[in-house]
């Protein structure tokens, strides 16, 4: 497909819109993890607006839906505007995140339409997704299970229990996307425990591995289409190289960006510039 085609222009526009809406949410809910949420924007946008994922906002338990498990819960605030836009809930809800009576928390729960599981605690999502993959395979169903993992989360031992399991059981309906933004909470991941070579780590556990620029919707789209259609009997992982705090220069270069919030004036200035 032509990288300049309408689809990719559309995805870029959506990504830009999602980024702005995410900043607006952060303005009213300062406890949201803004940097972590900004690195995953193009991943979410490509999956949903690129129609990689089968979903039905009007029927949350629709049998044919693909399952999406967002293991890096904190980084899913950018998913909120998309869910509202796609019809999972009213857009007005976006203005009430973290407030009394709202179901939208600063870390998402599965009480939110569109979220399959609760993942505020890290390291659980992949194992649960493996159980779902196994269930779908045993039932002979064709739906896929997508998982968004953070790279800081890869320090959790439970992730590697699941990585071994998925390879051994050839969970070929499982597609993991690692939002590889290279920053955990206190530092760059490499200064904590170097995760590299990440691709080889998955390969030796019998996974199919692809690597992509996680902010390039064209590259993301093609990689995801390929991984979805691939016939090899292996679980798949897409290592998406991203930038934590993408779009906000001050955050992009800060190893402590995870715990940084942007002040209201700063957000207004950024939003004005983005217009």
């Amino acid at each position, binding site marked *: 497909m032509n990288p300049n085609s309408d689809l990719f222009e559309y995805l870029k526009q959506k990504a830009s819109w999602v980024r702005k809406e995410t900043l607006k949410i952060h303005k009213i809910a300062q406890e949201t993890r803004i940097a972590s949420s900004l690195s995953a924007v193009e991943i979410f946008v490509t999956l949903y607006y690129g129609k990689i994922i089968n979903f039905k906002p009007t029927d949350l338990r629709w049998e044919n839906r693909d399952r999406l498990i967002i293991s890096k819960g904190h980084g899913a605030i950018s998913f909120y505007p998309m869910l509202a836009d796609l019809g999972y809930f009213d857009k007005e809800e976006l203005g009430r995140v973290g407030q009394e009576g709202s179901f939208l928390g600063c870390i998402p729960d*599965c009480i939110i339409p569109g979220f399959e599981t609760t993942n505020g605690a890290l390291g659980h999502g992949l194992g649960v997704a493996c159980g779902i993959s196994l269930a779908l395979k045993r039932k002979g169903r064709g739906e896929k299970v997508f998982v968004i993992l953070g790279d800081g989360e890869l320090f959790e031992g439970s992730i590697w229990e699941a990585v071994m399991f998925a390879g051994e059981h050839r969970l070929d309906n499982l597609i993991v996307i690692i939002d590889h933004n290279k920053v955990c909470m206190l530092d760059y991941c490499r200064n904590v425990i170097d995760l590299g070579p990440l691709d080889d780590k998955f390969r030796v556990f019998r996974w199919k591995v692809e690597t992509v620029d996680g902010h390039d919707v064209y590259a993301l789209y093609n990689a995801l289409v390929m991984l979805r259609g691939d016939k090899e009997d292996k679980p798949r992982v897409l290592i998406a190289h991203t930038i934590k705090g993408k779009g906000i220069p001050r955050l992009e270069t800060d190893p402590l960006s995870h715990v940084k919030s942007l002040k209201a004036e700063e957000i207004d200035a950024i939003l004005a510039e983005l217009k």
Partner: protein
Amino acid sequence: MKNEIRTMRDVFIEGIYNRMHKDSTLFFISADFGSPKLDMLREEFKDRFINVGIAEQNLINISTGLALEGFTVYAYAIAPFLTMRAYEQIRVNLSLHAQLKEVNVNLIGVGAGLSYDVSGPTHHCLEDITIMRSLPNMTLFSPSDWKLTEKFVDYSIRMKKPKYLRLDGKPLPQIYDSIEDSEFQNGFKELVKGEKICLVSTGYMSHKALRVANLVNEHQIRVGVIDLFMLKPLNEELFSESISLYDYVITLEEAFINKGGLDSLVASVIDRKNAKVRLKRMGFEDAYVFDMGSREHLHKLNHLDEKSIIKNIEEWT
């Protein structure tokens, strides 16, 4: 057939095995833990039995995923590792999800209390009642014999919630001939009617409570025995009525006391129902057990032997 000695886990696994033939929604997962009865199950149901390896966290996570897709799952491991290694997985993926969704995962923990007597403190399980009781939406079943355990098979399929089965590791004699559904749902049974003093026990300790009741009976002291097997949910109203007929209650558990176990459960019922009952708690004090020897020997060292219980009874007579 009363007094047949059997291992709870084998009876339970046999029950699940029998139902797996007809019910294709049952899935059995082990963290590399076995039993003679499990061998036939894993041989016959290769597509619905999985050994995840020595990986209790993944055991819970995989089970959760299967349950979210509608399977009834049995997650099988040694009790302390099942509950404590994977506690956060149980909390977030089972207990928390169960408030919003159907998650029928049955945690089968083998090795309640000091079942693994000579294996030392890593294999003893004295904290599980406390920690599992504190989880919302969790059922906590602590049977005293294999007959009750057998009864739990159908209950586990029917009640679509996460549950913890605290099973003894040793073969134990039968206490129950049979038990009615309604009695089972109440969560306790008064095995011996007594006067003034009642022993309230769970699991293995109910065998000891019955022995003690027999022994003191010879001296014309009639103590009651209540086997409390469903620590959550318990019919507290009815339980409160039963213990209110006594002046004194002694709780007996192979668990730490004064920190949320059976004793705390009974104390809170007494408290909330304003029952005029005095309570003595017997179990393990705030220390791990490094001593070697038989279960009975370890009980003696920790003042949980028959003599110590009788001494407490005599203080009140």
